[in-house]
């Protein structure tokens, strides 16, 4: 049987592909050979670097608790009315019977926390009641960044209020603020409460705080600016001791004497919320004051306490921290070298003794603030 050879053993197309593949292989080999070479390696590490849980920094917070014994007889409670459920009420203006976008009250909170720390279980605590028997007060709320007025959360709405109180019994309503995820937001917080009252009357408020936790401590944020727009016309009331130069001052409850007396004082309590385990590197108190009557001279000195335990004395009846005979506030900053423990810082009370040159005159305080520089490893 005869076999015929094909016309060509390899076609031209196959030859071209073979040539191309050969060239590619040759090129690959050449490049590989060129890149190859001897090398030797050695390692350093590994080393682990971990940053502090809280960086060093000064955190400041005002006194929200005031016990005023300027009269030398007894203590008058003069706390911020919205910071405690203490039956010291803040009454709004008259609401309408229906919600309106221009009828609300607003609370800007203080900023005493180290930023950048995770927050859990943040909640807005609002304690209120209707104005009178048989009336009903309702509210819903929005949460904003105070610095930018950016809305970050809504809770309830005009159709579905967060709560209504049909009694005159003060009741606390706590609303979870899931949008408050860290202390940077917490330090820049504004809560706007829209309200209505069935009798077109005021709402009686006892408490407006934000509470929650960080990995290191629990916290309470206190309102420092209160805006009441329940009537649609806004009025602003700042907590007198929280911000200097805002035109809102704390006037002593009674007149001071011409001489210092251990019976005449103001006790100021702070809530710095220094986390357990923190290292306090420095602390100080800002106290801005002047006479309530122009021409008078007022002087002061103070003691620091943890409960009933005296921690330190700054100035004395014979040598006050300072005196002020001007119409401007004396802006005193006094170092608290005795404040080295977290427990003492978190329980600090300062007892301010004052006197007035003419007697039977009051004093003004524009700022009472504790500054604590601390870090947490």
């Amino acid at each position: 049987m005869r076999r015929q050879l094909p016309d060509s053993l390899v076609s031209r197309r196959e030859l071209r592909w073979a040539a191309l593949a050969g060239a590619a292989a040759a090129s690959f080999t050449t490049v590989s050979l060129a890149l190859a070479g001897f090398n030797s390696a050695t390692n350093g590490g590994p080393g682990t670097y971990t940053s502090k849980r809280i960086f060093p920094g000064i955190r400041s917070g005002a006194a929200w608790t005031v016990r005023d014994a300027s009269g030398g007889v007894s203590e008058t409670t003069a706390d911020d009315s919205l910071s405690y459920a203490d039956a010291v009420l803040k009454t709004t203006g008259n609401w309408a019977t229906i919600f309106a976008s221009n009828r609300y009250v607003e609370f800007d909170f203080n900023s005493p926390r180290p930023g950048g720390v995770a927050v859990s279980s943040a909640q807005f605590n609002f304690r209120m009641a209707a104005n009178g028997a048989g009336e009903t007060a309702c509210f819903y709320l929005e949460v904003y960044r105070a610095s930018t007025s950016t809305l970050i959360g809504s809770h309830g709405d005009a159709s579905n209020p967060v709560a209504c109180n049909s009694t005159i019994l003060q009741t606390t309503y706590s609303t979870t603020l899931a949008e408050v995820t860290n202390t940077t937001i917490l330090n820049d917080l504004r809560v706007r409460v829209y309200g209505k009252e069935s009798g077109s009357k005021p709402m009686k408020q006892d408490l407006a705080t934000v509470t929650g936790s960080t990995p290191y401590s629990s916290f309470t944020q206190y309102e420092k600016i209160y805006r009441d727009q329940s009537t649609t016309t806004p009025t602003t009331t700042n907590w007198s001791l929280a911000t200097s130069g805002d035109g809102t001052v704390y006037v002593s409850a009674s007149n001071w004497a011409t001489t210092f007396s251990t019976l005449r004082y103001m006790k100021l309590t702070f809530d710095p919320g220094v986390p357990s385990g923190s290292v306090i590197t420095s602390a100080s108190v800002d106290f801005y004051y002047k006479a309530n009557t122009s021409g008078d001279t007022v002087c002061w000195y103070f003691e620091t306490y943890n409960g009933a335990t005296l921690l330190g004395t700054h100035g004395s009846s014979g040598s006050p921290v300072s005196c002020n005979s001007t119409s401007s506030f004396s802006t005193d900053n006094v170092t608290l070298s005795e404040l080295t423990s977290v427990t003492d810082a978190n329980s600090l009370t300062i007892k301010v003794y004052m006197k007035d040159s003419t007697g039977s005159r009051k004093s003004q305080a524009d700022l009472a603030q504790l500054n604590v520089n601390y870090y947490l490893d």
Partner: protein
Amino acid sequence: MRLSLQKIVLSIAIVGAAAGIAGLGTFATFTSSTSATHTIASGTLSLTAPFSRLGTGASPIAAGDTMQRAIDLSYAGSIAFSTVTLTTSASPSSLLDTDATNGLQMVIDKCSVAWTESGPPYTYTCGGSTSSVLASRALIGTDLALTNLTLTAGATDHLRATITFPSAAGNTFQNQSSTLSYAFTGTQRAGQSQ
């Protein structure tokens, strides 16, 4: 032109047989030969770190902190080095190494003699002259070229890495942790005539 397979095979067989006979005749004469041998052996290259503090981390650090760590690089072998590069990596990783601006920064210096160490925390002073090996940059990098190294077999370069946590690092850098590794790779000199 078409050829049958049989004809082709037959032709090749005939030509092959003829060539074989002719070849036998050609080699069937007196012969003489000489030979030479030589040995070609490849060289060696060795980069080691006989001393290193790079495994010493730091905790807890705050913005503005600076950490100094020394490492000696020794060169050995029969082939010279041309370069040494550094590759750094982090595992686990955090903002400390992923943020190129406010995360950890590194600069490497060389001392002509061994650094004088104190601490911990470690700090170093140079009793000789210093030169820059790596300019300040983000700590994490790949194949970073190191300069001013000796690179000759038998020599040792005394390096000091200064790691800085920038002061501008904000609160988002709190409670972060990174484990850093450093790989130094030395490469042979270029090929040459031998």
